[in-house]
């Protein structure tokens, strides 16, 4: 049997080989030309003395065409949303609209200096103000900061605000409760904010168990960090009871908004009891992931937490112009220089404008529809550990396939041969051998059907030909890399003698 027989979405093709940029370097090649210097020449040795640098060591010397080819060639080794479905659960790989990229690059926005006078920054300030107002409406909260640079950074900001608020009431308290299904950033954030972490168990439906929550919440608990829907794609139906249990003991509810794309336009966290939450603009609001960043993690909060927001915030001044307000004595301070990842704010606002209220709601509905469609079609082929209703993502396990020695990581690698980026592997931790699938709204029925066919074909291969899957992928430029040796003897930079040593 040809192992490629059932692969419909992809065909292998020629891709260019390419070494490291350093390996193309030779003295005298160049890709730049500076204009003539219009001021007198200087002698660096005279101005800098012993601090003058003579040589830049092994920095490359290459021409422009080589740079274009170098990066173009290696770019073709990447899988991207532009290629197709990227069902990484929890990461929300949705379409990145091109108009967002276009407007973010407009001069005046892209070239604005953060310290230029406010009166010649009104356009940029207006964007910050509008995005703030719209995110407040979308979340049902009262106030917001756009300063945090990413989701985890937003968590840190939000928990510091919780701490500052509790301190103002006389007692910062000692610990943060975190469900076992949470992202790793949650406990790491609590630790950075000076709190102990206490885990809470999910019940058999994948939700917070109210009885055990009640037993755990006391005057030492500062907050619960809750992702809703959680990483199982399950909406905590007793969300308001959870909020009530916390509030009754003076604790707050922090909502991790990583999965806000399941809720926009349908329900607002501010309405169901969240006190403070972050949003991931690079998930819900379509700003591109860029191969690992930049993110952007605005934090929205209720009135009681507003005084503690990082400074500055954008305000309308008495003369009607916009400006920054730095005079916020109760603020937790700055979490980042300047005003956050403004370029992402521009893109997120453009995304919201392109959608409008009806588009945002339809987007949420399509994301949930897609996840449920996949669940329905793959049920029976893969084990579904939680049968609770699915929102925007569905989590299967590899329980059936492990009987043949095939694990979630192997299925993922084989999926690559089928032309898809894998789902999220082995997360959340509450599901052993998890396959966490999040299609997002950006997939057509045709693309979903191809994915479903691929997953079914792999399930069949796992039965009949497990050795094949254990060795996948076959159709990529490189096969599985030896990550153990890479970590044991790390090579973290290029050095000119590397080749010689290897020989």
């Amino acid at each position, binding site marked *: 049997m040809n192992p490629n027989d059932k692969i419909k979405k992809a065909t292998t093709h020629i891709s260019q080989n390419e070494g490291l940029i350093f390996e193309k370097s030779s003295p005298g090649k160049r890709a730049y030309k500076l204009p003539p210097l219009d001021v007198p020449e200087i002698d660096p040795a005279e101005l800098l003395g012993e601090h003058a*640098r003579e040589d830049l060591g092994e920095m490359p010397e290459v021409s422009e065409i080589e740079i*274009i080819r170098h990066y173009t060639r290696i770019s073709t080794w*990447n*899988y991207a949303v532009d290629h197709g479905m990227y069902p990484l659960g929890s990461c929300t790989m949705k379409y990145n609209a091109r108009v967002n990229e276009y407007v973010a690059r407009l001069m005046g926005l892209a070239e604005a200096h953060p310290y230029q006078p406010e009166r010649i920054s009104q356009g940029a300030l207006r964007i910050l103000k509008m995005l703030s107002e719209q995110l407040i409406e979308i979340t049902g909260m009262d106030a917001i900061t756009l300063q945090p640079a990413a989701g985890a950074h937003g968590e840190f900001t939000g928990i510091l605000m919780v701490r500052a608020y509790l301190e103002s009431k006389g007692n910062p308290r000692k610990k943060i409760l975190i469900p076992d299904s949470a*992202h*790793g950033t949650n406990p790491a954030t609590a630790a950075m904010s000076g709190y102990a972490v206490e885990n809470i168990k999910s019940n058999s439906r994948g939700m917070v168990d109210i009885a055990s929550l009640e037993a755990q919440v006391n005057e030492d608990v500062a907050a619960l960090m809750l992702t809703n829907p959680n990483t199982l794609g399950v909406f905590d139906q007793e969300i308001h009871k959870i909020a009530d249990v916390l509030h009754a003991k003076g604790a707050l509810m922090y909502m991790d908004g990583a999965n806000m794309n399941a809720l926009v336009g349908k329900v607002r966290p501010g309405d169901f009891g969240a006190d403070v939450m972050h949003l991931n603009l690079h998930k819900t609001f379509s700003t591109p992931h860029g191969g*690992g960043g930049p993110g952007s993690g605005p934090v929205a909060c209720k009135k009681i937490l507003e005084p503690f927001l990082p400074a500055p915030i954008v305000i309308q001044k008495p003369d009607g112009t916009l400006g920054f307000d730095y005079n916020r004595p109760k603020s937790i301070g700055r*979490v980042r220089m300047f005003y956050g990842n403004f370029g992402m704010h521009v893109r997120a606002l453009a995304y919201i*404008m392109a959608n409008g209220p009806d588009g945002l709601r339809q987007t949420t509905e399509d994301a949930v529809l897609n996840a449920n469609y996949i669940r329905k079609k793959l049920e029976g082929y893969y084990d579904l550990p939680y049968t609770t209703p699915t929102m925007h993502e569905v989590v299967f396990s590899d329980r059936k396939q492990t009987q043949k020695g095939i694990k979630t990581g192997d299925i993922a690698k084989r999926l690559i041969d089928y032309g898809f980026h894998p789902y999220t592997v082995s997360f959340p931790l509450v599901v052993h051998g998890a396959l966490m699938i999040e299609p997002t709204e950006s997939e057509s029925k045709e693309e979903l059907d191809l994915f479903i066919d691929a997953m079914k074909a792999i399930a069949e291969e796992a039965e009949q030909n497990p050795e094949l899957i254990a060795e996948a992928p076959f159709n990529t430029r490189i096969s599985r890399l030896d990550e153990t040796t890479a970590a044991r003897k790390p090579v973290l930079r290029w050095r000119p003698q590397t080749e010689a040593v290897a020989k």
Partner: protein
Amino acid sequence: MRYLPKSQSDREVMLREIGAKSIDDLFAAIPAEYRLDRDLNIPRQYAESEIVEFFRERAANSAQGFATFLGAGAYSHYRPVVIESLVSRGEFFTAYTPYQPEIAQGTLQSIFEFQSMICELTGMDVANASMYDGSTGAAEALMMAARITGRSKCAVANTVHPEYREVITTYSRYQGMPITTFGYAKNGRIDLDTLDMALDEETAGVLIQSPNFFGTIEDVAALADIVHSKGALLIVSIAEAVSLGIVKPPAEADIVSMEAQSFGVPLGFGGPYCGVIATKEKFVRQMPGRLVGEARDKQGRRGFVLTLSTREQHIRREKATSNICTNQGLMALMCGIFMSVYGREGMKELAKHNLAKAHYAAEQFKKAGATVLFEGAPRFNEFVIQTKTDPYAINDKLLQEKIIGGFPLRKFYPELSNAALWCCTETTSKASIDAAAKEVAL
């Protein structure tokens, strides 16, 4: 909605297959009393042409066509066109974190090259895949020093960017990491007496910036001796990365925390930028953030992977070196391309142009009657002048000539009244320097 690839009949077919009567069935888990039974109160759907129009108006209402003398942590350098051309490839900007190396070698290799070039420029052994920015990177570097030394206190020069220091204050507050500050001397460099007083046997890390916030280049080697004699680590923050083309790298430091925005990242009203931490090999396991390393496949082919991830939050949770998850991947790519364009010779030449312009400007301002402060030590492309007139008033006048003047220092350094920090880069024209010189004379 034009981003959604489904017809109404697709949706109906899918609902039928699922066994749902309507889409509402799929949202039944949300208690009815919390469901939003109205439209969000946000503007209606805009056409693409309207979106472009809207942002063009906002852009027109932000400074355009001004010559600028602002630096202070964000630098206006020319961005070679190939940068936008390459980072606009969907293969780069619409990819995720390279968790599946077989189909992410483009991102991984570009980060490996970025790490290598940062090492080369800073004189460090290893660099990470980037941090959010220079301010948070500096805070994380101090936390790293505390982990390495097992000590708790840190000392920070008050010539480190004031907003970096504010971020450090926020980060350190609940980590049991008290921060002391030390001052600057007449020549703008660190005052060694106050440094000495700030250090004791419990000091984990000392953070300085070079060129510092006044543009002055610190004597890193001498400072390293003092700091090391107390068993503490020296962390050097670099806000103006282009300086590395012509200023000796801080090789004596233990950790370098950089803001690489100058390497081809747009000013963008303050972000996204590109922090990066570099250090000595022996400290790598205490480093925060993602790292890319070389690996081989079964056939012996070279590839790259995310490595040493046991430091990170997704494995270690509350015991991780940091809660940081994302890096600034696309910005690191811009920096890598920028560094490739200028390369070994160009980075030097570029830095030299910066030095020449700033030197010329300082001389012209002096001739015009302004006082250049901190004359006793070398500078790169920023310098401080003191004027008879309030710098805000000078800047108001310059704005009428479409020139954005220097950054008034009073806000952060009340003792430096009527002083402002001016920056010249290769993009600053002699004509605008001469025009500015006329105003600072008054």
